[in-house]
């Protein structure tokens, strides 16, 4: 039953994606093609990883609004280190980003899990705070592409597999790996299942003797770590990192999660849903910006309606399920 409900939601999303593709292919010349895939997949990679992190937190009936700031901070920090020392090993750079993200996520986690401040307040606060620390730390300087090591500059162009003009970029492969890993984690590990349990009923989780605080903490740390990874990819993709890097990504990640069918009040949803949600949003954005007939400025208005529709449809499903 539950499986079917989730699968159904994912099916609806896939259908929507196909519809969007079909619709735009009528309007835009040469729309369907390798270029579209390359473009959208590369930009989805960033949003999807962030949305996966957000999913972990949202599943536990929390929310992390600070991810945009974490992305900006890690992108800047790692960029700075790499600018200062071009010889830092790539792996070290990635670990640095993930570690820094995890540390920032841990701050959120402590405040939410042990100080018992509602997540929305904590992360609203750290959204501002992390950004401030970034501005102060960076002295409002900018990371410049020219100072970055060549391997990083080449990273966005790196293909894992290519078929004619269809490229599977390395960053996309990273995203897919993360998605598979976390899908398995959530589905098959007892840790993952307990995240669902906490979000489904915090009281029951508490009385069942789950270490709810540690689990919620872990969700925030993982979310931070994934935001850190996103920060690294962000650095690779955009090269120039200013103090506003990643601004607004928090809302976009929440939007992706909601469109992806993850219940904003926890307990249900899947990583696949989050990835599909992110894909749909990015696809829509990329398509609208290309279309000459439809104003690109309709983008946000459409996205708003899309979120409403996704949630409304979902709630209809839920109501059906409740009634025997």
């Amino acid at each position, binding site marked *: 039953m539950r499986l079917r409900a989730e699968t159904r939601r994912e099916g609806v999303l896939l259908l929507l994606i196909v519809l969007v593709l079909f619709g735009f292919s009528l309007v835009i010349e040469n729309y369907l093609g390798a270029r579209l895939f390359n*473009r959208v997949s590369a930009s989805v990679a960033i949003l999807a990883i962030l949305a996966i992190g957000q999913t972990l937190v949202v599943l536990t009936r929390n929310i992390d609004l600070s991810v945009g700031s974490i992305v900006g901070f890690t992108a800047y920090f790692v960029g700075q280190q790499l600018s200062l020392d071009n010889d830092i090993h790539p792996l070290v750079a990635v670990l640095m980003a993930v570690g820094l993200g995890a540390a920032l996520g841990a701050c959120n986690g402590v405040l939410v899990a042990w100080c018992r401040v509602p997540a929305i307040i904590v992360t609203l606060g750290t959204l501002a705070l992390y950004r401030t620390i970034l501005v102060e730390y960076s002295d*409002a300087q900018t990371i410049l*592409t020219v100072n970055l090591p060549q391997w990083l500059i080449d990273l966005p*162009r790196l293909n894992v597999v290519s078929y004619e003009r269809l490229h599977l970029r390395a960053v996309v492969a990273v995203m897919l790996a993360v998605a598979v890993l976390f899908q398995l984690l959530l589905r098959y590990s007892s840790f993952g299942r307990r995240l669902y349990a906490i979000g489904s009923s915090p009281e029951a989780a508490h009385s069942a003797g789950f270490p709810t605080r540690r689990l919620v903490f872990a969700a925030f740390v993982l979310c931070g770590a994934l935001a850190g990874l996103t920060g690294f990819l962000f650095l690779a993709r955009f090269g*120039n990192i200013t103090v506003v890097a990643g601004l607004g990504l928090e809302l976009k990640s929440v939007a992706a999660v909601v469109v992806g069918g993850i219940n904003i009040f926890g307990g249900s949803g899947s990583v696949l849903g989050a990835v599909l949600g992110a894909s749909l949003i990015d696809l829509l954005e990329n398509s609208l*910006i*290309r279309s000459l007939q439809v104003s690109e400025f309709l983008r946000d208005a459409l996205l708003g309606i899309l979120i409403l529709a996704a949630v409304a449809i979902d709630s209809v499903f839920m109501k059906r399920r409740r009634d025997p």
Partner: protein
Amino acid sequence: MKLKQLMTLSVVAAVLGAGSAHAEVMAEKGKEANLVLMPKFIGILVFDQAHDGAREAHEELANPGTLEFIGPTPENSVAGQIEIVTTATTQGQDGIMISNNSGDQIAPAARAAREKGLAVVTWDSQIPSAEGEQVFVAQVDFDQTGVVMADMALSILGEAGGDFAILSATPDAANQNSWIAAMKTALEEDKYSALNLVDVVYGDDQSEKSYNQALALIDKYPNMKLIMAPTSVGIVAAAKALQDEDLCGQIKVSGLGLPAEMVSYTMNGCAPEFALWSFVDLGYLTYYVTYLIATGQIEGVEGETFSAGRMGSYTIHKDPTREQGLRVLMGPFSVYDKDNVEAAAR
């Protein structure tokens, strides 16, 4: 900055017919004036360079007062600029130097500042209506900027010409808007008839947005040959986008950029030519003008001539690119290509 200047564009704004009713003012040093230098927003390299220039002038003039470099953050630029001007007024500063990113929205606050006796000088980007502004320190002649951009486009695309698009900063950036308007005017000449401007988009001077806008342009206009970005942020982002897409062979980037940021793209052919002026000098000159007005040594009226330290003598003229307003014209333009960019980048 030692620039090899390939092209020095008409800067010498002629000897004024109005005659030199005013004798050249030599700045008297050591007078106190608390001044605020406000960029469009923080985190942009060129503005930091302007700050360096202003600091140089500040020390040279031995001003016992303070020089504050305060800017809003990019996402809050408009409201932030207004707030900073208002606060400076409240604080009783003696002068404020504005690189306006708020169109005419900043005019009421600037007017209020002037009413309180602050010297209000704009630099880099003017107040379009000139309301509340005393003098605009123009880096180059804005009409000329259009011609320079058109020339670069022509030189890159050749006689055959082709489609090109403009990737600008924010939609309210007065300087960029003036340049784009000037370029459109310039394009009407027969000489540029092969150049076809297909679109103007805005990257808000943010790397990510500029990058995405550049990609969108590529997808939207398959025949586009050139992206012209009259902003130091936009031009780098566009160049990186093209490089990431391996499209440097088909589409070029040009516009206004910093040699230090652009050197690799110029060397690998993504951005064969671009232009800029010295932001250090711009900051230096702006500081001189503001200091002189704030200390009452000049009034900031048409026809006044003054000496700006190492940069020599300047005169306040009517701004021919606007209906109203005065300007001090700095210049010159420097155009960079792979022959001179490496030297300039150092």
